[in-house]
């Protein structure tokens, strides 16, 4: 019986999603209650699993075409997945509760909570997956729930487009991912993580081949964790409700790519080339996103670009073969980024869905709890000691310094940029004087929203201390202390903060406008151009050929009466179709008769 217990973590949210979709779409408060109970069950079960390291889970068979192919559904219960499960279900529970306040007046509340439950199911499935196909199943399912939640306000054009963009972009990544899985399966003969690891030697001397396989697997993470060049969907995904941005597009789902990389690190680490590419993709993303963030005006987009940038740090750490540092940053980032989004959501909802930072200002007095908690999150994000982000970012920078100096320099530059744009946002939103009516009339959010903020603020503050974090994670080994690294980091931080305060204190409009950054390096325009001249062009060409060459060349001609049969057939009217059909049947039987029996 106990071996079924771990499955409860997955099945409770699934049951909730099913019950809401099938039965309680009309009763909004019942739906909320079901969903929250489900996530609390998941959280409690996760904690139980966490406290019982010896727990085991039953294995089911999803597909079995023995001896060729077998897909078991099993749960991996190792320290990594147990920590991740507690993290995901814990933050999930807080965000469910917060959503009660945020989505209070929404018409589609039942649909929203059903999708949140389905998300919990899918995300926890990724966490526990024991093999690649199972991982892929849940991987696609989180993509689906992300689509549903981004498009929650589907009757407006922007969210509808953003939902499509997110799903299609991640599917491009999944194309590579699946190809990688196929290659890996053929080479090692297995899809189960635990079986592949000892068989990596089967790749033998094919170094290029190993690199290709590793990079294809990495493609999945590039799509899901929104790394360069597939990063474009994440900022647009901010069209979804803010709690969704906090849960899915900051704390958990986008981190799934990093989690997956850590889970299958033995594949990436089998190739030096692959590692180097991964590290550089992470670095480019970290710097590029931070640069863009310095010039954005929408509070959620600034946070979205900072998410991209921090994910870049994690991927960078994976690429430098330091899974501990990557997971440590994932862990602290989940707290402070969820916090930042939820606090931003509190600001947004109290300003009647105003997201432009230039229309805010002076909110520290109107929204004191939001301000303090947002501040804690911001300090953690810029890596200010002793907040959690300092420790995890320092761990990544130390690894950079040890392995790759150019990457270290760029990571330091990104840290400077982070300090700059976060301070810019803080100064404009919370200090100065209110710059719009809604900002003047705002007041603090209800307790159902501020409680999760306070809990997350405590976690974001303390989460980085070793006495806390080491209960959950294997922390990066303490090297002989390179004082150099944290000192440089703090210098970068001071420069960033100082520059932002100097530039933005007391301003009511943007003093420096850099078009290249405001337009996000023209990625959207470039992709639109690329799609127009490749896919759309080919599609039109194919449609033209289909209509005017294949169709017209074949029977189209006959039905349009251009040649013999067509002319004859045109004489036959619809009413005579029966007669034709009858003759057709008779003819068939006659042909059989003469051909076979004579």
């Amino acid at each position, binding site marked *: 019986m106990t071996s079924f217990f771990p499955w409860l973590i997955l099945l409770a949210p699934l049951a909730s999603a099913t019950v809401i979709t099938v039965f309680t779409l009309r009763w909004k408060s019942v739906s909320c209650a079901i969903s929250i109970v489900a996530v609390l069950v998941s959280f409690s079960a996760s904690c139980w699993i966490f406290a019982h390291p010896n727990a085991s889970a039953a294995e089911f068979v999803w597909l079995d075409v023995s001896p060729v192919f077998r897909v078991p559904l099993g749960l991996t219960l190792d320290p990594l997945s147990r920590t991740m499960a507690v993290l995901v279900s814990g933050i999930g529970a807080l965000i469910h509760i917060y959503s009660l306040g945020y989505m209070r007046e929404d018409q589609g509340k039942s649909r929203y909570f059903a999708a949140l439950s389905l998300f919990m199911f899918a995300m926890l499935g990724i966490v526990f997956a024991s093999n690649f196909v199972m991982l892929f199943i849940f991987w696609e399912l989180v993509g689906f729930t992300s689509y549903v939640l981004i498009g929650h306000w589907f009757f407006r054009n922007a969210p509808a487009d953003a939902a499509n963009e997110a799903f299609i972009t991640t599917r491009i990544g999944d194309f590579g991912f699946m190809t990688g899985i196929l290659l890996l399966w053929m080479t090692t003969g297995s899809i189960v993580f635990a079986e592949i690891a000892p068989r990596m030697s089967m790749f033998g001397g094919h170094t290029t081949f190993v690199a290709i396989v590793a990079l294809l697997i990495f493609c999945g993470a590039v799509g899901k964790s929104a790394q360069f060049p597939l990063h474009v969907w994440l900022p647009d995904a901010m069209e979804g409700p803010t709690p969704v941005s906090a849960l899915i597009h900051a704390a958990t789902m986008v981190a799934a790519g990093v989690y997956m990389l850590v889970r299958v690190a033995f594949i990436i680490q089998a190739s030096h080339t692959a590692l180097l590419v991964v590290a550089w993709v992470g670095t480019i993303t970290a710097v590029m996103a931070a640069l863009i963030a310095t010039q954005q005006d929408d509070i959620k987009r600034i946070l979205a670009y900072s998410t991209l940038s921090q994910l870049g740090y994690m991927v960078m750490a994976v690429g430098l073969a330091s899974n501990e540092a990557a997971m440590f940053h994932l862990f602290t980032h989940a707290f402070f980024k969820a916090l930042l989004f939820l606090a931003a959501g509190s600001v947004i909802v109290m300003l009647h869905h105003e997201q432009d930072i230039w229309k805010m200002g002076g909110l520290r007095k109107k929204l004191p709890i939001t301000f303090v908690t947002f501040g804690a999150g911001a300090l953690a994000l810029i890596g200010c000691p002793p907040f959690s982000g300092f420790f995890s970012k320092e761990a990544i920078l130390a690894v950079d310094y040890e392995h790759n100096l150019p990457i270290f320099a760029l990571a330091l530059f990104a840290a400077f940029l982070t300090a700059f744009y976060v301070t810019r946002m803080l100064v404009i939103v919370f200090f100065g004087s209110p710059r719009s009516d809604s900002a003047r009339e705002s007041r603090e959010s209800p307790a159902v929203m501020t409680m999760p903020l306070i809990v997350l603020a405590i976690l974001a503050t303390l989460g980085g201390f070793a006495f806390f974090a080491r209960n959950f994670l294997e922390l990066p080994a303490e090297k002989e202390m390179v004082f150099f690294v944290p000192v440089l980091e703090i210098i970068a931080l001071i420069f960033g903060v100082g520059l932002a305060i100097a530039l933005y204190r007391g301003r009511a409009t943007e003093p420096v406008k850099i078009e290249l950054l405001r337009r996000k390096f023209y990625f959207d325009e470039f992709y639109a151009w690329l799609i127009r001249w490749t896919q759309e062009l080919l599609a039109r060409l194919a449609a033209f050929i289909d209509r005017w060459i294949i169709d017209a060349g074949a029977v189209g001609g006959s039905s349009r009466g251009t040649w013999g049969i067509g002319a004859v057939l045109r004489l036959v009217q619809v009413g005579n179709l029966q007669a034709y059909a009858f003759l057709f049947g008779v003819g068939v039987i006659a042909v*059989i008769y003469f051909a076979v029996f004579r």
Partner: protein
Amino acid sequence: MVLFTIFCPLVAAVLIMLGAPARKTALAASILTFGAALFLFASFDRSHAGFQHVTSLGISPEWRLSFITGVDGLSMIMVLLASIVTLAAVWFTSAIERYEHAFYACLLLISAGAIGAFASIDLFFFYAFHELALIPTFLLIGIWGSGNRVAAAWKITIYLAIGSFILLIGLILLYQSFPLASRSFDIRVLQSAAAMGQISPEAQRHVYLLLLIGFGILISLFPFHTWAPEAYAAAPAPVAMLHAGVLKKFGLYGLLRLAIPMLPEGARHWATLLVVLLLGNIIYVGLVTIAQKRLDWMLGYSSVMHMGYVFLGIASFGVLGATGAVVLMFAHGLSIALLFGIAGELRRRTGTLAFDELGGLARTMPFAGLAFGFGTFAAIGLPGFANFAGEVMIFFGAFRNGWEIGRMHMFQIATVLALWGVVLSTVYMLRAYRKTFMGSAGEQWRKLPDLSKGLRVPVTLLVGALLCYGFFPQIFVRSVAPIFGRSLSANPVTQSRSPGAVSPGSREQRESASTERGGYTIQQIATR
């Protein structure tokens, strides 16, 4: 019980023509058929792979012709599919303005014909039942269709008549390529004779090509596909559901039932051709689908495109791919029926299916939006739906064919391109959903009524079946895989594998490779 599933719709059709209340009789008959199919499915003995519930009725001893019916795992699934889609199609039929009796009778005839073809073990009836189903299809499009219905009816008639004719010649040649002593119409007899290598490789190549083209036209294999979108756009929704969902699968069923097990040498010889054509279905037709500007045409083209995946499973020539092909046939039949059904309801309400005129319908018609959403995500292979299970098996099955470490051979390239096809289908399905159901709704659509409550039954049935077999594909796989396990490994020809085909993989994998004996390499094809 098998006979009941065939004759129940047939008798009901006759009764309707004689004056029984059309809709009620048709519904009752399709419910009874569905019940019988479920009973067959439940009582199916999964432990043995042969035909079950066999009944035989001698017609003419001197011609060795008898009416034999029965089901094995493969035909069981097809009968189940046919009965589910029939029920949904009859249920989705809305008020018919003229010749209502004839309309329902035709629908039931298609159903009887399809079920008869799937359940016949006799070559003659296998073919005859399919013809029985085709003729009412033409009538339904020509008489009750919309838009350019006459042209569409003629086009599908001509295409399918030519296809059936080529198929007929192929079947006759197949029959004649057996030595005199083993000629029979009984597919089981033919199969065991073929397994003993009684058809010369020469004959196999010729016959296989004929069957491939004949069945291929019926399945809308590239480049014989242009009849499909036009016919489905013109057809009344229930007809599109039945044809795209069930009747089109007859060709695939035929390939799996006759061509692959009896003509392995032919299959191997023409593998390259088939792979090229199926990539035409997936990539080329996928691109054409993206360019469509109307929902019905888009759905028609998408159903053509998805046939490419089933072909890939068949072409992969192994247990895994073939089983995947069967699961995908079933899943695609249900999902396309759902999509065509909802699209028909939309057309009835809005009078148009052009993307430019639609938008935001999920707000006014939430249930239609939900149901179409299920169909959309099933069609693009979201896990949880049976389509995903089928596609995964096909991809893995095709990819292992002719594998060599560090090299990309024909099947690996084809699989990767087919995977890219998944991205294409995501693009066109999601765009269609976006343009139809999402975004701001036009003023004229603000007052549209949602689907009637009664339609929840067929929608639930279709979605439920998709989810059920998506979550538990093993229910099917258990009874289908053994059939192919037998026929794809019993052929002496296929037992020879070039050494290059076996990867330096694990011991288990080598064992599996030699047990399945399905794969072959591009070198093998080239050297033949």
